């Protein structure tokens, strides 16, 4: 096992008590595939055999070990409080990456190859975020790191956040060079490359004297906040998810928000929107992060502009991209979310996960989908101040 990932105090992956599968009702891999082999309880079963050398490593077994999206919802829901499931999954993948690379699913290797070639998971050669229009402040202690999805697929989201920050006179900077945070490498089991990326990011943070590293992607947040330490890299800054950061900013601008209803009431087209909020699973037990996102939506309710009606989990991260989020699977999953949101008569689905937003936009129809920041900008009617 990889030296960085060993921690004797961690619960072993084979510590499953075979309860009535609390993991089953929360596991996205099972939800999509319907395959019991992909359930954490059965991955644990195979792991115990793997550890004892009682099972042959086959392509199918490797597929099972790579089926987990690392969303951590099984850890949150486990009645036996097994909090080390994902950690152990990474350990197994690390072993497989070193010794049985030929058995790793093609889509996983493709992403690793893309990263090796271009530094991003899409193998995109585009310029990414156009920083010329952004009011970056190189002396700011708040530094944003967007990740591949925003940089190459959804640069508009960062433009939205910069509008919001500009409106509220909050200074910020952006790390635009460190292309990949390293999370996809980690989830693929390439610990060496993941560690290299973590060190690169640490240097980038040091170079801009950042105190707060604000993350946009739930998986990237989890990786930098929780995994870098396990890889032996101290990132040297406080890691904050952007909803926490925004929520703080909104509290400081409370007068402005309270003043909004009057201003908004002049808009005859305005109606209260029913918001279907999608939580991301990667925050593990940091429930305050999803809460801060919900607080933002609830804050909008006070403006008479938005009604928070329901929440649901959506599970995406680099692990998800690597494994089960092939187009057919994603479509199936998106349809499920749309069905639920429509049955609750939602007007809009709001998510805090860029990758989730990306896929919902791509495969959904008949309902509005918004990333939280864009929804906030729209509802607060913050103008373009490029």
């Amino acid at each position: 096992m990889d030296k960085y990932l060993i921690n004797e105090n961690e619960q072993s992956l084979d510590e499953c008590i075979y309860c009535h599968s609390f993991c089953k009702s929360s596991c996205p891999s099972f939800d999509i595939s319907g395959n019991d082999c992909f359930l954490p309880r059965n991955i644990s079963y195979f792991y115990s055999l793997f550890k004892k050398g009682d099972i042959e490593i086959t392509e199918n077994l490797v597929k099972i070990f790579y089926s987990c999206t690392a969303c951590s919802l099984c850890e949150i829901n486990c009645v036996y409080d097994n909090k080390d499931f994902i950690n152990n999954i990474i350990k197994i993948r690390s072993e497989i990456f070193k010794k049985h690379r030929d058995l790793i699913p093609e889509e996983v290797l493709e992403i690793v190859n893309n990263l090796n070639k271009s530094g991003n998971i899409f193998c995109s050669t585009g310029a990414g975020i156009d920083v010329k229009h952004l009011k970056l402040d190189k002396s700011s202690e708040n530094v944003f790191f967007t990740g591949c999805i925003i940089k190459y697929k959804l640069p508009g989201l960062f433009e939205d956040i910069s509008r919001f920050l500009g409106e509220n006179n909050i200074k910020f900077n952006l790390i635009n060079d460190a292309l990949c945070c390293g999370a996809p490498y980690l989830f693929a089991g390439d610990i060496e490359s993941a560690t290299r990326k973590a060190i690169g990011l640490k240097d980038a943070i040091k170079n801009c004297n950042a105190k707060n590293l604000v993350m946009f992607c739930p998986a990237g947040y989890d990786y930098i906040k929780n995994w870098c330490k396990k890889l032996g890299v101290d990132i040297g800054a406080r890691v904050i998810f952007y909803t926490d950061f925004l929520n703080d900013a909104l509290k400081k601008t409370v007068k402005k928000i309270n003043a909004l209803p009057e201003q908004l009431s002049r808009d005859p087209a305005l109606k209260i929107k029913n918001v279907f909020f999608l939580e991301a699973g990667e925050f593990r037990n940091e429930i305050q992060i999803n809460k801060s996102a919900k607080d933002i939506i609830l804050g909008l309710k006070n403006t008479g502009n938005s009604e928070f009606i329901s929440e649901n989990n959506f599970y995406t991260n680099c692990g998800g991209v690597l494994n089960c989020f092939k187009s057919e699977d994603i479509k199936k999953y998106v349809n499920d979310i749309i069905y639920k949101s429509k049955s609750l008569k939602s007007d809009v689905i709001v998510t805090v996960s860029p990758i989730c937003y990306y896929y919902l936009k791509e495969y959904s129809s008949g309902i509005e989908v918004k990333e939280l920041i864009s929804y906030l900008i729209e509802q607060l009617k913050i103008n373009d101040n490029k």
Partner: protein
Amino acid sequence: MEEKNKKQLIHIIGEDNISFNIEDRMVYSRDITPVSYKWLNIYNKPPYLCDCVFRPSTIEQIRDVLKFCNKNSIPLTVYGGGSGTVGGVFPLEGGITIDMIRFNRILNLDKESGLVTVESGMIGDRLEKELNFEGFTMRHFPQSLKSASIGGLIATKSVGQFSTKYGGIENILISLDIMLPNGRIISTTKTPRTSTGPDLKSLFIGSEGIFGIILNATLKIIRIPEKIVFRSYLCKGFYDGINAIREMIQAGIQPPVVRLYNKEESELKFKKLGLNKIGSLLILCFEGKERIVNAEIAETEIINKKNKLEYIGEEIGKIWFEHRYDTKGIMEYNRMKGGISDAIEISVNWADINELYKEVISYFKKKQIKFAAHLSHIYQTGASIYFIFYIKSNSENDAIELFYKTWDEVLEITLRHNGSISHHHGIGIIKKEMLKKETGYGYELISSIKNLIDPNKILNKGKIVD
């Protein structure tokens, strides 16, 4: 399985619908029976292993496979959610295991009549969530809800934690479509009641997959109740609690949840909650229209006072409700080397309950087996008792041997007191011999029906009947 059979199967149903991978075969040959947990430490592979896992997505595929199995005398075992606790899915003679997971759609939601028609592979928890989105609920909450399939709940004749008001699956199941081994489908009538000869539907409830393959079911649903209230009481003795709940139910009060724990199990619960109380804990839940709920509570208070039950608040009930699917207490005992535990769920009439309870408890004490007990499914004429036992022996094999012995001996006592050997977990491999004792000539009748419906004995071979 012979190579020619494999090829033929692939030809019939397509490569994407069948797996011969060892990993699939291992997973789909087990459930959560405690002995199968012990197997993890004894064997590399489950001792009973299917030859392949078949995941049909159409009725025609199931029919084709049944035809193939009949022709080649290949056993076929149906797998729902793998949440059984008595080994009902163990493929005793190998063959094909059929995983119904792709049959997971809601076919019809009739809000006016309060009916949902759902395919049998849908997981109970998923169905409940879908219904909740529409403002409805099944009110059928077995502890396995998060993993059991609708077909599995019917095949094992399940019961939920809200059963005292809403009954078991047989009370919410209106009709079903079932494919017989000859490929013909029986669709039972979807009306509230019929008087059309013997009730065919009942033949398949609790049949554990030996008569046919459940394709879909129509279930009764209700609007999510307006009000839900929990109340907890302390009873000086277990029998005081029994008297109170019997009076309550026989007076026509219908709390969906009635849970009366014996002194041993109550102590564990009080200790966990940091409460210094001695006696038996009773948890009640009332739900429905507010005025009806209030009236039921008022009537309950009169009965409970008469039986000297002390009201101890709402909180314990609420905590139970939050953790109601948690089986950690029982299951984690199985992790210990030589440790094994299980819940024996029997049913008995009020007239026999005290004597039966007394004898089982003295059996555990005599054998020095750690135990706990509670009543959680209450009827006008009697109740189900859960006897939870914890065995510690020197080895995994000894634990398995003692496990079977304990089951048999407790069920023998149950039969002596006119009880039934199974309230809702089913027969599986654990209670087959005892079933013969309970049903007498009825067992021969079940065998004859099996021979008539499934002459080649392909479905769930070796279960319930020989």
